[in-house]
């Protein structure tokens, strides 16, 4: 059987480009700028390639690799968010002297890993993609190797993540043992019958995935890694792997585990509620913005999982809408951090934001929009994200989940308000350098405009997401 390699075109292009720019990096000295720009161009070209491919369902390599609307949507989301993360953090990377040419290349490799994750239709391919991604992320976390905190966060992430990968792999092998197949579709058929062993496997796989999206109780690494890693990496961590992780989670629920809904639903509901509560409560005492955003992202993953917990297509769609708006909000929030520069040093504490509304009114109002949106206050984009999720949850008559979820939004509103209070109500202490970081400003502008105008056409995003599950 001859496979149509066109289907694999984005991945092939990405791989070959990675190899070529790696060679350029090796042979040309001080090539960070060149490699950086090339990487951005590669990401952009890959988006173009994906946009030109068809969205029809195709499965190749013994049905282990799928290309459909679902995988294409997530690939584009991953690429665009990486593009913004990479470019808005460029000044930061230069200032922090992280200008190693490997930096953008490793990011590209992790993107490649995620591509295989979201496209996989086979446990083995899924695991390989996941590991390719994880290994790149370990390096990225500790890329500032002279910094104790960064190295510490890398080690921490590596140890815990390796453990979770181990559990995941154990789950995968159990699943193979009990169903006799590694293919998602075949596993799904097999699980239609009574199969207690496979439920064990499902639990292990869920644990592994919950770790990757940093859902409670497997979230312990998140605050430390977020705080320790350089901000440019943290913003990558906060956005891109979460998207891929959620995509894979949805895919597992959608295909292999679709027939054991009862079994996994309870677990996801628990994880979702725990994440929402912890994300809301633990963030209150934080003083470091990055740590606070870590807890806030745990809470947001809880809301996205609430959509998954419904176990129906409309619920999955609401999760995807949620994660997309989450990406927009977080890109904006982290881009704001790149502008908090004082005498060449980047400030990370909430107290440093004190009274910036007087000297930096535009930055302050961007923070305001993004934080109120994170808190889910209408008419900003974050409200619609929550609205879609809770509409799906209430449709399945999971009232308890909806009420707990909405009550935690009130608690989490408290710490977002605390930051706004620092920005607007407190006296001005620091005035930041007038940084010329065009791309960060651009991404703040884009993020705020999307959040502010989302209420005019809220169905644009959900109409796109509706088409993902047609096949």
């Amino acid at each position: 059987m001859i496979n149509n390699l066109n289907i694999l075109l984005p991945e092939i292009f990405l791989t070959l480009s990675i190899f070529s720019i790696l060679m350029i990096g090796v042979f040309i000295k001080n090539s960070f700028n060149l490699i950086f720009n090339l990487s951005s161009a590669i990401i952009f070209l890959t988006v173009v390639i994906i946009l030109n491919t068809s969205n029809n369902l195709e499965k190749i390599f013994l049905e282990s690799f799928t290309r459909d609307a679902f995988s294409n949507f997530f690939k584009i989301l991953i690429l665009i968010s990486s593009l913004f993360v990479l470019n808005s953090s460029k000044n930061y990377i230069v200032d922090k002297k992280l200008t190693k040419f490997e930096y953008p290349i490793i990011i590209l490799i992790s993107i490649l890993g995620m591509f295989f994750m979201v496209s996989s239709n086979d446990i083995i391919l899924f695991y390989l993609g996941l590991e390719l991604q994880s290994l790149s992320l370990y390096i990225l976390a500790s890329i500032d190797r002279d910094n104790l905190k960064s190295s510490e966060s890398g080690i921490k992430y590596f140890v815990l993540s390796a453990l979770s990968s181990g559990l995941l792999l154990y789950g995968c092998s159990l699943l193979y043992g009990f169903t006799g197949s590694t293919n998602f579709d075949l596993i799904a058929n097999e699980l239609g019958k009574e199969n207690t062993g496979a439920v064990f496997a499902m639990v292990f796989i869920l644990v592994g995935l919950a770790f990757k999206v940093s859902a409670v109780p497997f979230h312990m690494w998140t605050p430390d890694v977020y705080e320790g890693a350089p901000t440019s990496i943290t913003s990558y961590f906060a956005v891109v792997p979460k998207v891929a992780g959620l995509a894979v989670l949805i895919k597992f629920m959608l295909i292999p585990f679709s027939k054991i809904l009862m079994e996994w639903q309870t677990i996801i509901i628990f994880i979702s509620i725990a994440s929402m509560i912890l994300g809301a409560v633990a963030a209150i005492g934080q003083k470091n913005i990055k740590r606070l955003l870590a807890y806030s992202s745990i809470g947001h993953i809880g809301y996205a999982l609430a959509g998954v917990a419904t176990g129906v297509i409309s619920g999955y769609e609401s999760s995807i809408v949620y994660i997309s708006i989450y990406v927009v909000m977080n890109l904006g929030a982290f881009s704001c951090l790149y502008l908090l520069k004082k005498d060449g040093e980047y400030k990370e504490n909430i107290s440093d934001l004190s009274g910036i509304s007087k000297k930096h009114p535009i930055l302050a109002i961007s923070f305001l929009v993004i934080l109120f949106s994170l808190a889910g206050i209408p008419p900003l984009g974050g409200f619609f994200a929550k609205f879609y999720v809770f509409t799906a949850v209430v449709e399945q008559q999971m009232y308890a989940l909806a009420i707990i979820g909405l009550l935690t939004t009130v608690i989490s509103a408290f710490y977002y308000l605390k930051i706004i209070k620092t920005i607007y109500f407190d006296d001005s202490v620091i005035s930041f350098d007038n940084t010329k970081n065009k791309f960060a400003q651009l991404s703040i502008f884009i993020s705020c405009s999307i959040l502010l105008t989302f209420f005019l056409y809220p169905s644009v995003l959900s109409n796109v997401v509706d088409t993902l599950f047609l096949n």
Partner: protein
Amino acid sequence: MDFPILSTLIFLPLVSSLFIFISRGQKNNNSAIYISLFSSLATFILSLFVWYSMDYTSADFQFLEEQSWINDFIKFKLGIDGISILFIVLTTLITPICIISCINSVKDRVKEFLIAILILETFMIGVFCSLDLVVFYLFFEAGLIPMFLIIGVWGGPRRVYSAFKFFLFTLLGSVLMLVAIIAIYWITGTTDVTQIYEIKIPKEYQNLLWLAFFSSFAVKTPMWPVHTWLPDAHVEAPTAGSVILAAILLKMAGYGFLRFSLPMFPLASEFFTPLIFTLSIIAIIYTSLVALMQEDMKKLIAYSSVAHMGYVTLGIFTFTKQGIEGSIFQMISHGLISAALFLCVGVVYDRLHSRMISTYGGLVNYLPKYSFLFIVFALAGLGLPGTSGFLGEFLVLTGTFQKNYLVAMLATFGVVLGAAYMLWLTKRVIFGVTKNDQIKNLKDVNKSEMIMLGILAVLVIFFGFYPVPLMETLNVSVDNLINNYETAVQIESLN
């Protein structure tokens, strides 16, 4: 109507706030003040035009606008009837007055303040225009953002505490309403209010849904025991913030009861009437007593607002024509009177920077015009016949007597208490001996203060003698509301 007049009304202030945002001239805020004053007056005139051109003889919703919005199932639907137009006109009237008031009282970051006020106006008009639950929720909640900033940025010393309390109390009440709205969508298949009126929500769901809506409206009204955010918010908010809060934001809840709780859940409304009566009576008597003890003028007026809103909820849940018309009238009149009283406090606060009653005394000797206006509003606040304050309370009490003598008697007792705290306040502030030497050097009301207080005084007295324009507008819509309620209850009793 092809021209989307309600959308224009809603988004006009928002668009003009954008103009202020991009307007130059940091040192001199005149351009910002002129733009905002001009646009808010334009909004006011437009709303008067809508009032003039609507048909009061029909209970149907008018000036309907419909846009497909969230996917296919939720429409952005706007429309008004005789009840909502009054609140819209109240909103558009109070906003320019607030903008005039901030010429004297806001010194810092004027531009941002005006932007916040105009954005808030957009959301407030939106609340009263929306005919879809989700649209209503959107505007209802969105108002929190500008109000939070108004209290927090331009407020007094305890502004942070008050702003947080205001925001979190209201948000906590509202999220339950959001669950209820989504639940209504899955029960009836729509969030369009007019369609829900037709469909009639099954009885078994009504009580829970009513409670969820109640949790939001009770906080916003505010009803005892969740009223504690209001005195704090009022005391710390700048004058214009207090005015908007008392005159309009509190009315959203009363309007919500009329527009949503009563027609959508008639059986539950009947079932929970004793609860509302009890809470209203506690609000009227207890908070009046609390108001007597206050030493801070703003706090006193804030507690009197809680008591006055007690009459409103009492009137709505009598389900009689007098009661409901009375409570709507009371809301409008309280909107004018409490706004005026807060402005009066603002006038002296701008001069002496104290809200304590003990600071003042004997103002009548030095500020005669001010004292005259203050007395007019204080008398209106206690419900003196000939002012609009009287008619609302009188109608509510008439309605209540038809339903329950005991409740009506207790509520009437509240009128006496209202007179007590208002007259005592007047006595201590306006009359008496001047102990404070600074008062002797105070200037009487200036031109802009005279304009805003004068307009309100004229309206308060005008509606006191001639309430016909308001009543005529309300009449048919209220009849329709009561008819629908009675039919629903009768059908239930037949089953």
